[in-house]
């Protein structure tokens, strides 16, 4: 399978701060997604981003496929951003997705 490494594993921020989360993967992929898992366990898709850059409000993501990494930027963080952020990749026809171990974010008021 594909190895997916996320960093940092834990992150504590004060409300209003900015942060960058990283996802490294060990092989070429044709699908990469970022998810947010809230404290109740629900996973929400943030970005589908196998390459390039996308922005959605305070969140943006960049994937450099040739160098096998992706970055998730959170600006002006809010307490509702707390939770675990996962990166997931797939290689062939979305048959299997491989998840990283996540970055646990705690935004304090």
């Amino acid at each position: 399978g594909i190895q997916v490494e996320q960093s940092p594993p834990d992150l504590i921020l004060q409300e209003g701060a900015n942060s960058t989360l990283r996802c490294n993967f060990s092989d070429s992929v044709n699908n990469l997604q970022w998810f947010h898992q809230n404290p109740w366990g629900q996973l929400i898709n943030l970005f589908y981003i196998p390459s390039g850059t996308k922005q959605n409000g305070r969140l943006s993501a960049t994937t450099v496929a040739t160098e096998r990494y992706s970055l998730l930027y959170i600006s002006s963080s809010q307490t509702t951003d707390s939770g675990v952020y996962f990166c997931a990749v797939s290689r062939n026809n979305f048959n299997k997705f491989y998840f990283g171990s996540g970055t646990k974010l705690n935004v304090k008021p």
Partner: protein
Amino acid sequence: EADIYQTPRYLVIGTGKKITLECSQTMGHDKMYWYQQDPGMELHLIHYSYGVNSTEKGDLSSESTVSRIRTEHFPLTLESARPSHTSQYLCASLGRRGRGSTDTQYFGPGTRLTVL
């Protein structure tokens, strides 16, 4: 927002019982997945399906079985539950919602299973 449902949300059951975790989606997606996740840990794929009558095992060995008789329904069954099966089970489907959208995974709320 996502049209994918799981029942029950929580289940506490004794060792040796047979259980079925339900998963349904109303988006017409062909591809569906079951993941197992321990608290605070990564998700592990245990089963996936390309469509009706098509199921495959994932990378994480699991004693559970699945079936896909209808597109919208992808139940997971444990014939004899054990304490080692205690975990959260997440169901997902892959596809598009709306014009111009891309293929993304949509997750159900999960079932938290505890086997005593």
